[in-house]
């Protein structure tokens, strides 16, 4: 599904990713943990196609082809989804309208017909229920005035509606109470299948009790310094990162 090969990336001359290698197969859940500033969000943004970074070396291969030249929208249409660490507020664009546009753009790219507002409304309401959100949410402006938890839930709602093949979750669990965490985890788990893959970036082992990963990687200074199974997360939780840092 995804292969990151010797990826080097910098921003304004500052080296952030320094030879990152990672392979995620269909149906797998990988988790990345690592100290603040190690480059986790940078990796997520680069995968989503954010243009602020210079890729100085390496490649990202998705479904057998390099995606470095693809725009963010093309990547999304190919099935890549990033749940942002800090979802932005967009006043004046309603959630409902935005979700339908996104759904139709992605489905059009997959060769499907767009859904009428009524049909889409049905689909959206189902997913909203799953995430225990309120229907009135569709009328509100995109993320505007949302609490931290609502924003994160909205990311997962979008994911549930758009049904991506590769989902990248950037600290979606940060700032969630245990109830919200379970709701979010349920949303993610409902999408797990033999065809879908996940890259779960997190700070806390807690999330991984609910979304159980196949592999755990530790990112330090732009490089993966250790990989293991879910037990590695427990070890990191008790020992911290410093023992891996040199």
């Amino acid at each position, binding site marked *: 599904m995804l292969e990151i090969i010797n990826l080097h990336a910098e921003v304004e001359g500052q080296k952030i990713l320094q030879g990152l290698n990672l392979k995620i197969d269909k149906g797998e859940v990988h988790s990345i943990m690592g100290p603040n500033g190690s480059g986790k969000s940078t990796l997520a943004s680069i995968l989503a196609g954010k243009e602020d970074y210079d890729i100085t070396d390496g490649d990202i291969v998705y479904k057998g082809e390099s995606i470095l030249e693809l725009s963010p929208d093309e990547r999304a249409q190919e099935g890549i989804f990033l749940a942002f660490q800090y979802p*932005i507020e967009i006043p004046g664009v309603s959630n409902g309208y935005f979700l339908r546009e996104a759904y139709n753009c992605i489905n059009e790219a997959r060769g499907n017909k767009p859904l009428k507002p009524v049909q889409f409304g049905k689909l959206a309401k189902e997913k909203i229920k799953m995430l225990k959100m309120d229907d009135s949410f569709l009328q509100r402006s995109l993320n505007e005035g949302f609490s931290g938890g609502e924003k994160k839930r909205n990311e997962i709602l979008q994911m549930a509606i758009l049904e991506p093949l590769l989902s990248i979750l950037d600290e979606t669990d940060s700032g969630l109470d245990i109830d919200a965490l379970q709701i979010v985890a349920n949303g993610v788990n409902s999408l797990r299948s033999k065809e879908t893959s996940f890259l779960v970036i997190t700070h806390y082992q807690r999330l991984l009790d609910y979304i159980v990963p196949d592999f755990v990687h530790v990112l330090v200074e732009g490089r993966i310094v250790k990989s293991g199974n879910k037990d590695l997360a427990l070890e990191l939780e008790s020992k911290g990162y410093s023992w891996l840092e040199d």
Partner: protein
Amino acid sequence: MEKLDTRLIKNFEERNLSKHSLGWISDYRSTAINLVKEMGMPKLSDEDWRFTSLKDFSLKDFSPIFSSKSNFKKPSLPDYIDKIDGYFIYIHNGNLVSGTEYPFIVEPLEASFEYPEVKKVLLDDTLSKNKDFFYELGSAFIENGLYLKINKSQKIDKPIIIINSFDSELDNKFLNTRNIFFFGESSSAEIIEYSLSDSQNEYFLNKTTTVNIESNSNVEHLLVEAGNKNSYIFSNLKIIQSRDSNFTTNSILTGGLLIRNNVHPMLNGEGANSNILGLYLSTEEQLMDNYMFVEHLKANCESRQLYKGLLNDSSKGVFHGRILVHEEAQQTNAYQTNRNLLLSDDAQVDTKPQLEIYADDVKCSHGATIGQIDKEALLYLRARGISKDKAMLMLIKAFTDEVCEPIKNQTLLDAFHNIVNNWFEKSKLTN
């Protein structure tokens, strides 16, 4: 070479415009032409013209046109205007196209000079201390125009749609129009003014409209200035509101090489309410100068200004928002917001509030912003599969839509959205 104002003054004298069969019109014109002479064409050094140079304009040769000889042909309007269920009034090159009956009064201005309310509106205007060159020029050349009157307690069931069409007869001409819209007590109406030009050549349009709203009336007004992009358009819209009247005006500016949009609401009766909305959509070399002058004369009135600019290419925008609260106007609420979205590095905008408050119990606020498309917002939408062009349009539309929020009438709202959407399509903003 002689300046435009000098030539126009000469033309005024050659035509003997100060001699009219109605004595008060003769006086009215003479007073105005004297002011025109005295003031001269505005310069950058004039506080109210700081950002808009009339240098090129003042060297142009525009000669006045009064009566049109070209045949009226119904202009080809976009469907979303043409198909509106409304009362259409056509004005062609400044002349009212007659032959249609309306359930309200529609006459050429000249025919209405004998009405006492018209005389009063015109003469009251001369008392204003704030003199504007183009306003006075309009008074000096007063002749063409429209008188529209809604009688007391009349509720007009469908929007009144005034189509101002121009053709090549106007090339290199100066057209002066003076409109008076009179809304009797407890009346209600919606008006759309739509102007468009058939020719691509330059013309000079000087348009003055006085809207008189008697007490307890409700009026909504949508003004679309879609003339060609080589024209010089000077628009003066003055609104006099009586007690407990509600007025909403929304200007969408898309036309003109240079457009000066003066809006001057006078809240002249307690409990009057005014929404002053506008959208200036500029591309290429266009210059759109908005001069707002909101005057609170009586207590307990509220005014809300919301003007937004969307500027592309090397176009330029100006927003000058003046609020004057007179001593008597206690418990005034006056709000002003100006927001600008620059779509290119070469676009430019100047914004300036000017508050003069002489009453002590006043709530007054103003705010202005100048920004660009938010890159993070754009990425967010694109990361959900929405193409760059579509995402840009979503963000731009979110920006412009706010301007129509205070409009209540659905037909006017639909027209607003259609006009703005159509402009987006034509302007190819996302290249």
